[in-house]
């Protein structure tokens, strides 16, 4: 346990230093910003997939809900931006609560069901009939609260918080009960584990991560469209980064995001289809030969991965 605490502290401090220094070393601040956003999303996916086995293809629905939550709270209700960001996260939690019956589904049903749910949210937000509230498909402009540096650090805080949440879950009885549910809900219930409640709790926590990330993302970019914050590619990237690094670990999603998002920035921005080809092949190779992700290479050698 003590050893875990030390390595966890090192990871958190390391992340903080990395992203505080990154804008000084790297000319384009938005690159480390997006990396943080994806890392936070990957940790959110990790909370759900890594500990319960639910793989939410529609995870971006919460990200978009967070972004639009902020825009409605700021533009329509004139909240100041920090409460609005938290409110945006809570909007995602509310959406997740509404969608919690999806947890009755398992495997592919859940994955595709969640994808359908996020598309429904997208079509509602982007519908021209919703113009009074969400501006429909025409996008929103948060120029009034635009603050790239503050929002950059807000994303860092969110990343650190949810990395810490993963650490907590991984080392707690709660996390153990989730792993038990993942393997066999019936046996878990016979251990006295409240299966339904624990699943819902982690589902809401995961949605909160995506909602906050989406909210800060909306604040940072300040101009966005439904098609940009509900883009399925965001779900796909976050899932692939998590799977690549390895779910159920603290480090997996971090390593996965650094490696793959780094790769994306080298080749993906100019020719996204080559990047898509590479990560598509990576997934195939991963499933065939390394289904537990990159960090499992270390685990196989008996090295404890935080």
């Amino acid at each position, binding site marked *: 346990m003590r050893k875990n605490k030390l390595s966890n502290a090192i990871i958190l401090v390391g992340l903080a230093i990395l992203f505080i220094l990154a804008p000084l070393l790297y000319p384009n601040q938005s690159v480390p910003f997006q990396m943080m956003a994806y890392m936070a999303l990957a940790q959110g996916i990790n909370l759900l997939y890594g500990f319960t*086995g639910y*793989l939410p293809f529609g995870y971006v629905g919460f990200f978009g809900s967070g972004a639009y939550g902020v825009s409605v709270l700021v533009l329509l209700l004139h909240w100041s931006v920090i409460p609005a960001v938290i409110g945006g996260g809570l909007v995602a939690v509310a959406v997740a609560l509404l969608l919690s*019956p*999806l947890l*009755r*589904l*398992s*495997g*592919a*049903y859940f*994955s*595709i*069901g969640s*994808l*359908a*749910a996020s*598309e*429904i949210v997208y*079509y*509602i937000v982007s*519908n*021209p*009939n919703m113009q009074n509230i969400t501006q429909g498909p025409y996008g929103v402009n948060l120029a009034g609260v635009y603050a790239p540096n503050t929002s950059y650090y807000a994303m860092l805080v969110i990343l650190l918080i949810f990395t810490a949440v993963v650490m907590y879950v991984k080392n707690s009885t709660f996390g153990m009960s989730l792993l038990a549910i993942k393997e066999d809900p019936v046996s878990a219930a016979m251990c006295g584990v409240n299966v339904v409640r624990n699943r819902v709790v982690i589902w809401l926590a995961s949605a909160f991560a995506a909602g906050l990330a989406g909210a800060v993302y909306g604040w940072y970019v300040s101009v966005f469209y439904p098609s940009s914050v509900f883009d*399925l590619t965001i779900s*796909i990237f976050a899932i692939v980064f998590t*799977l690549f690094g390895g779910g159920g670990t603290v480090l997996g999603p971090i390593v996965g995001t650094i490696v793959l998002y780094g790769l994306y920035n080298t080749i993906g921005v100019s020719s996204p*289809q*080559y990047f*898509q*080809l590479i*990560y*598509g*092949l*990576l*997934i*195939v190779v*991963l*499933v*065939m030969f390394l*289904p537990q992700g990159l960090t499992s290479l270390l685990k196989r050698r008996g090295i404890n991965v935080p």
Partner: protein
Amino acid sequence: MSTFLFAVVSGILFGVFFSLMAIGLNFAFGVMKIVNLAHGDFVMLGAFGAYYALTVFGVNPFATMLLEIAVFLVVGVGLYYGIIPRLLRSDDPEMLSLILFFGISQVIEALATLAFGTNPVTLPTNALGQLSVQLFGQAFGSSWVIGFLVSVVAIGLLYLYLYKTKMGIATRAVMANRNEAAASGINVNRISAVAFGIALALAAVAGVLTPFMLGGIYPSVGVNLTITSFSIIVIGSLGNPVGTVVGGLVYGLSLLLMQTYLSSWANMVPYVLLILILLIKPSGLLGKGARNA
């Protein structure tokens, strides 16, 4: 009233076509219990095949269809032996297959984008032939009617295979219980490989029809087609081919009625139907009993 009738008849024409598009996905699931998330991408490839055969080489879509059936069958059998036996031995085949085919879907989409670009391509609707039908004083375009007829024939052939041939009966045994089937001396791997080939061949047939039924084709359309297909088979009931036809009709009718009366919300139809069915009756309209969830 005539608007309503037009919507209903078109809904049925489209519904049967959508059944064809989805039935391969359902067939593969029924036999192997895996969800081929690249199904829509194979439909997309079939569509591009028809497009280039016609525009570059002047090949009639029906000839392309026969050629594609052969090619996709071989590809399907090869793909099966290459990956699926290994997957089925793993701890969690259903989840891993979902992720794996998601990867394959990304690879196909990327390669298609490199080869075909991102702009939609279209084919003249009369390339399938002339067969206009008058019904209730309304004219229905020949591509819709021919697409409907081809779909009926393809689904009928699948039915004949499953119920009238020796291999088809063995396939149904595998669908019912893989282990029992193996214990009764059925070569489960060979049956499944052929089933996967047939599933892709059905996707190819639907693909050739797609430009005529749905209009513009582009590489990233595959994801939408997969979700639509998945919705249809969940509506019908997963693993039950007859259910797919019901699912396709429900989907086609709902879509066309929404487009007629509430067009700005029509895009949501497959997703809303999917969620409703999943939550209200997860085993589908024709499903028996409940699944463990």
